[in-house]
């Protein structure tokens, strides 16, 4: 499992929990929940594509490109399903705080990952690679 695949798993966990907590929050407001649900679902789906593509490009082509893309797909399906199952069966945070907490952690994880990766090429600093 590559480092980026692990990061993608973390992202899937945070992103899915954020999504389900938003749906839970929206369902509290019965009046106008259809449009927010549609928007959340679209943003949720696009998020997987964007982050998965970005992280996948960072992985070495030699790390078995086909198997790796399959693993990205598997993780992108399994983790949301697992989080969804846990959400439905067990823990349902029916409050207005949880979506913001997970939104904060998702943004934090994405921005930290972006800043860390900005000066790196295949886990090497530019100075290290071209010294």
């Amino acid at each position, binding site marked *: 499992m590559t480092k980026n695949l692990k990061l993608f798993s973390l992202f899937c966990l945070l992103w899915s929990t954020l999504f389900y907590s938003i749906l839970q929050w929206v369902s509290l407001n019965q009046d106008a929940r259809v449009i927010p649900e549609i928007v959340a679902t679209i943003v949720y789906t696009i998020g997987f594509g964007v982050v998965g593509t970005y992280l996948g490009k960072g992985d*070495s*082509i*030699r790390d078995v490109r086909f198997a790796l893309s399959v693993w990205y797909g598997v993780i992108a399906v399994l983790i949301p399903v697992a989080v969804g199952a846990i959400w439905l069966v067990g823990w349902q945070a029916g409050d207005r705080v949880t979506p913001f907490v997970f939104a904060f952690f998702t943004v934090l994880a994405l921005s930290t990952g972006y800043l860390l990766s900005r000066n790196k*090429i*295949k886990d*090497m600093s530019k100075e*290290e*690679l*071209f*010294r």
Partner: protein
Amino acid sequence: MDKDAGYERQLLEGWEEVFKKGQLTLWILLALKHGPKHMADIKQFIEQGTNNAVTADNASMYRALRRYYVAEMVDFVAAPGDRGPERKVYKLSPIGGRVLQRFVENNILNVFYKPEIRSLLERSI
């Protein structure tokens, strides 16, 4: 006069030492642009091409090639050695070729080959 000569040599050596740093990437990629080579041939190409101005020990060369391989700029195939174990024959990857082309255009051809700069360089010797 001797004092100046010594100082000039000191200046030149210092400048050259700093100038040479970072040139290894260019020369390794140029060597591979010339054709696939194993490490010893790459090293020989660089030494001949730079009149021994740019040199690197074997360990530095292998480390550099390993980094460029990880960065997908070079690739290699294992070829039978003369007598001993298999040797890696390195070649420029398509990514490495395009990066080299852009680097040479941006930093060499479009700079040092400009007529006024080229003329200036020729007049400085």
